[in-house]
């Protein structure tokens, strides 16, 4: 189980008022990704772990999936379901988790 301090770290790591999102919002949005990338971004195999990925890297990847610049399968569609602010909140949440 993830120790409690990690959650605190995740909440603290978010820029205050970033795009109107709060820590819980990023956590809830990010939880949806677990069906392919594992609980709290720690993959059970076959797909990339997202936990601990620098926010800028995940933001760039998601934006490239969304624009079509980066080839993808399911992420081609899924990335288009999120706004810039939502992508920022998801990336900040995963970045704050330990690998």
């Amino acid at each position, binding site marked *: *189980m*993830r120790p*409690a301090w990690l959650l605190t770290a995740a909440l603290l790591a978010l820029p205050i008022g970033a795009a109107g999102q709060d820590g*819980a*919002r990023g*956590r*809830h*949005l990010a*939880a*949806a*990704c*677990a*069906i*392919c*990338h*594992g*609980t709290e971004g720690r*993959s*059970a*195999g*076959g*797909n990339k772990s997202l936990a601990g990925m620098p926010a800028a890297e995940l933001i760039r990847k998601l934006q490239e999936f969304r624009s079509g610049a980066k080839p993808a*399968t*399911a992420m*081609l*569609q*899924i*990335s*288009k*379901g*999120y706004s810039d602010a*939502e992508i920022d909140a998801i990336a900040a949440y995963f970045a704050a988790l330990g690998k």
Partner: protein
Amino acid sequence: MRAFSRREFLRLGGAAALSLAGCARTTGGKARVVVIGGGFAGATAAKYIRLWDPGIEVLMVEREAVFTSCPMSNLVLGGYKSMPDIQRGYQRLADYGVQRIRDEALAVDGAKKLVKLACGGDLSYDRLIVAPGIDFDFSELDGYQAAMAAGRVLHAWKAGPQTAALRKQLEAMRDGGVYVLSVPFAPYRCLPAPYERASLVAAYFKQAKPRSKVLIVDANPEITSKGPLFLRAWSDLYPGLIEYRANSKAIGVDAKNSVVNLEVEDVKGDVLNVIPPQRAGDIAAKAGVVTTNNRWCDIDWLTMESKAVKNIHVLGDATLAAPAMPKSGSLANNQAKLCAAAVVELINGRPPDPRPKLINACYSFVSPGEAVHLAAVYGWDAGERTMHPIKGAGGTSSERSELEAKNALAWAQNIWADSFG
């Protein structure tokens, strides 16, 4: 799917479970959530409530000892996976502090906030999560239950003993035999699954008994999901092996003559796989949360709380679908997290997230080594108070591929780990 005798219950560790029963609230916990059902929806909800607020006591009532996954079960029918490959234990949920009770919920008193268990004892709750999956409506299929009891027709639409039994029947079938697969009207659990099943059985026939045939008789006017991708795979990979008949609703099974009665004709087969119409699992009706067509449970999509009974949330296949939302394992898991987040907020006296989103990622194998996907993101529509698919964020693979098959297997490993610990 059976109840356990009291002796069996005790042998299986019921003594520990009984200590949890009783009307009194346990001390220490700030609130108690009871979850009925340990599938993709129920297990995920139980785990995530504990993950997000370990102060909440979570009891999960599930009658089976292990989970058997419907996703990937068609690979077992084709002979490409074994039953243990698609099963997961519940032990790891204990790491999150989920208390599992191996029992069957018999009734729910929504006014007194009590769940009555088959093996005795009542469980009190502050909030109840009902995640029973589906049960079958056999009333529109003459002769079905007797034929099923005699082993002459199977649905294999809840993965488990019927999955293993259907595989045995396919193995025993003569070369040159006919496998009849009957599809009910949508909505049913997992729209593309019948066509995936037809594909993988055809792959097995092609290799092991090439004179045989798959005959799909579909109540619907066309293939209900990923149609062009399935049709292309069937003509490329299994020419002449799969026959598809639309508008062919089954109305009965004649076990003696090995026949499925359709509205318009009868079809004879060697192996009869008739998928009955479905509804929310039986405990939903007993809890009073079935709202629509005597089948499904309407809910508030911000919290998954029943529109019929307060403090009862309904998840997964049992829900009345939002527009263009299928009944899938991915959505059951995602709905469970939406619900877990809302329940944690509500118990802590805060409002639920007002802008939830859900992802559906749905893979189908069209051959043992190639798959296709359908993906969609759903967002809250405050005007209509429901979830809508987000425009431009949905669609299917452009073509089948080996990469998608790898992705499908990775999805299975990750959703099983995410749902069951």
